[in-house]
């Protein structure tokens, strides 16, 4: 470890509420330490589990308020869904020619958000981005809950939801099978696989941390709860070897899943012959957009949480800055895709392609197109400047813009392409009826799950963060010899 890893760490203030926000110069030689404040392993554990170990009756009032708010939105959602069952999808504004609207927009929005979690846990892991250890647990939890929300959108949009099991190829006496040639059917498999692997990945990472909570448990229910969840983990060498192998394998399995799920979601649109939907760049463009939206959601969740939970030493402003850079990159990638679509529509000389894109930008839904461009392409460009991308308030605001923009991206794709199709006599202007409840309701579901996660599960991967701290180096504390350069591989941005 030694010189290389620490050479860029000037003295930081003592106050743990301040030092995580101090903006350090970009390291050239060596790597910045990922955890600030010279914490010991024990201090890290204490810091993370404090919120989990607070007695139930002493849950902070703002948390209870937040949970009640989210839960009441979720209750509203349940009521809305019952009504939807009773009345059918006629309660939505869907009609000819826009037969597919907010239901699918919400689905793609939520599935997309899930992708940042898998990207952080799997792809950044394989790219040896060690700073991920401070944010991956959050992002993975977000993935799981976002996919739950996405799943609820799809399950509920089929009309006769009591027949949803027909989505699966179940042998039946009528000899009826699902349409294997439909990308909607591929979605069923893709999303289910994605959910399963993400859940396993998340849970595998949680096991050692559950064991930590179990070992520290002072009440019976905690002992039973965390004891059951930790699956008998004792932290033996054999356990760790198996764990590391499983983790790496799951990471390798997740990597293609990040791409495949949103690729197949893009196929839902792109295999059609509709101008605005059918274009070959859709698969990578959707994946980039998904990662983009997902990182924005991570920022929206983690910037307040790190302050409220006192985790600034673990999630430093450097972590926020790194994620902002990814937002800048992926935002520009979707900008490239918007531009390329527009260019090729013009280049193709195909009047239907051309019309669709002119109609998007200057037709009746022009406002949604420019919200999309403003939020997704223009807003992240602020992050070119270090001053702005290390400003936490601004980061949160831009991330919120991106979330809005990414929802509108799906709105633009779905609705503007449909509302004026090739048959001019059937052109119409889609107006949502009760769909707002649908969208807000899924947010209630998401935040209920997420707040419960924060309260009961360790929000930072304790064991993993420790592995990138200087103490994890086998030669930590040894006096290094002179006249040679020692190998430093742990830690670093």
């Amino acid at each position, binding site marked *: 470890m030694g010189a290389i890893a620490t050479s860029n760490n000037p003295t930081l203030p003592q106050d743990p509420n301040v030092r995580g926000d101090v903006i350090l110069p970009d390291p*050239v030689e060596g790597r910045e330490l990922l955890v600030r404040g010279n914490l010991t392993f024990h201090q890290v554990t204490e810091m993370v589990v404090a919120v989990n170990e607070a007695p139930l009756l002493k849950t902070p009032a703002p948390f209870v308020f937040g949970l009640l708010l989210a839960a009441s939105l979720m209750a509203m959602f349940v009521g809305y869904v019952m009504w939807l069952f009773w009345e059918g999808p006629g309660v939505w504004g869907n009609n000819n020619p826009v037969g597919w609207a907010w239901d699918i927009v919400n689905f793609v929005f939520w599935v997309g958000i899930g992708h940042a979690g898998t990207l952080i846990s799997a792809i950044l892991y394989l790219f040896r981005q060690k700073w991920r250890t401070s944010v991956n647990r959050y992002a993975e939890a977000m993935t799981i809950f976002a996919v739950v929300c996405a799943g609820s959108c799809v399950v509920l949009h089929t009309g006769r939801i009591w027949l949803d099991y027909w989505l699966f190829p179940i042998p039946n006496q009528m000899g009826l099978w699902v349409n294997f040639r439909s990308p909607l059917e591929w979605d069923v498999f893709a999303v289910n696989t994605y959910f399963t692997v993400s859940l396993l990945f998340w849970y595998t990472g949680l096991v050692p941390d559950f064991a930590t909570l179990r070992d520290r448990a002072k009440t019976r229910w905690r002992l039973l709860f965390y004891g059951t969840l930790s699956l008998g983990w004792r932290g033996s060498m054999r356990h760790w070897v198996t764990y590391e192998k499983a983790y790496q394998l799951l990471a390798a399995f997740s990597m293609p899943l990040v791409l495949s799920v949103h*690729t197949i979601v893009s196929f839902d649109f792109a295999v*059609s012959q509709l101008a605005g939907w059918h274009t070959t760049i859709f*698969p990578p463009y959707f994946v980039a957009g998904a990662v983009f939206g997902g990182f924005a959601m991570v920022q929206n969740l983690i910037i307040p949480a790190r302050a409220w939970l006192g985790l600034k030493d673990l999630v430093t402003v450097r972590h926020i800055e790194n994620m902002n850079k990814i937002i800048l990159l992926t935002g520009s990638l979707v900008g490239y895709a918007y531009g390329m679509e527009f260019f090729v529509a013009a280049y193709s000389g195909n*009047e239907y392609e051309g019309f669709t894109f002119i109609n998007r930008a200057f037709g009746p839904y022009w406002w949604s197109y420019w919200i999309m461009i403003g939020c997704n392409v223009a807003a992240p460009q602020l992050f070119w400047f270090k001053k702005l991308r290390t400003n936490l308030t601004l980061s949160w605001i831009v991330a919120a813009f991106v979330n809005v923009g990414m929802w509108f991206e799906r709105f633009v794709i779905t609705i503007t392409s449909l509302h004026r199709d090739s048959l001019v006599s059937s052109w119409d202007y889609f107006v949502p009826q009760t769909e707002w409840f649908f969208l807000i309701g899924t947010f209630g579901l998401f935040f209920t799950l997420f707040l419960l996660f924060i309260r009961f599960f360790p929000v930072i991967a304790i064991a993993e963060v420790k592995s990138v701290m200087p103490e994890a*180096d*086998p030669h930590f504390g040894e006096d290094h010899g002179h006249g040679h350069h020692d190998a430093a591989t742990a830690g670093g941005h």
Partner: protein
Amino acid sequence: MSSKVIERPTDITVPATSLWAKLPVIAGGVGALGTLATIGMMFGEHKERAFFSYLFAYMTVLSVALGSLIFVLIQHVARAGWSAVVRRIAENSAATLPLFVLLFLPILLGFGHLYPWSHESDKILEAKRWWLGADLGNHSMAKFVLRAAIFFAVWVGLSYVLRKRSTAQDALVEDKEKRNTVTLSLWSLSAGGIFLYALSQSFAAVDWLMSLQPHWYSTIFGVYYFAGSMVGFYSFLALAAMALQKGGMLKTAITTEHFHDIGKFMFGHTVFWAYITFSQFMLIWYANIPEETEYFMVRMEGGWDKLSLAMPLIHFFIPFLFLVSRHVKRSRVGLAIGAIWLITVHTLDIFWIVIPNAGAHHGPPAGAAHGAAGEAVAAVGHAPHLSVALTDVTAFIGIVGLFLAAFAFLMKKNAVVCIGDPRLDESLAHENF
């Protein structure tokens, strides 16, 4: 995470006796011969094929130079530590880009033969004039040349500055503050550079390759050329690093760990290429719109069908299964086989993009354009039968030779490793675990 002793390399210049020192003359001679022979044949009986052969060779080798450029840009932006020992190789192969400006001239010479839109007309082509240019009659290629000039300005400018500042850094080993300033300046330059690169590379692919079939269009085409270029580049990087060690340089500096990482990128970009290529094919096949299927239809007859069907196997499944193994990536022989294989299939991929257009009959003749878009595109061209012409070989040898000569010439001029790079120590100590 071991504390092994790391020594800074001293074998960092091209030895006068090695093949590397002679390469500029040898490869330059062979390359000039091949290129001149091809240019000669551009005035002969099979001149049309000669132009296509030349374009194929040009786009293949250019893809490696462009891949080098984006590699260097990414390493700076990501503040990559592992790659400092091999970055100079890419800096030099990217700095060959000015050569490609010169080599672009024969393409302009063949403009009228290569690009049907330069002399044909129908309703669709007329709708594309705003971008492509070249009004029928005066054969104006002003827009085409202007755009090429912009692309080259971006590439040559970036690769020149990246190499110049990096080699200047070599002398600053002792002056920590100055050398760190250089690294920081390259970091900010590269961030903007990536954006310019992405746009120029994509539009170059549209201009020089996609417009060979001017009725056809695909939004993913720029990414497709990029994916292939990365496969070509990482394979080139692996081979160049091995050749350096054979030539007596960086014997201990480049370790199995670096080769392993290069191998991972070869593997990863093979998968990426397959993903992009499949996305393009699958969506066009599924929607089955005549404007788009034209591209694949001409490649599904006359022998091209066999290459088309072989592509998934040779460009994806075989290298995937081969390179997925850790042992292969960590073995020099294994990695070399993988790299040669990938360069070969990447070359075939560009061959498959360019050559079917040689002598193809595009659309109806100028006078017969009836206006209706459907009619014009319905007349799908036919590719000539799959064959390898003499000019394919001469052009390929020619441009590869000139590229290698320029590359070796640049390697000789400075240290073969970024000896002043502040992250060199980290790179030397790099381990996969």
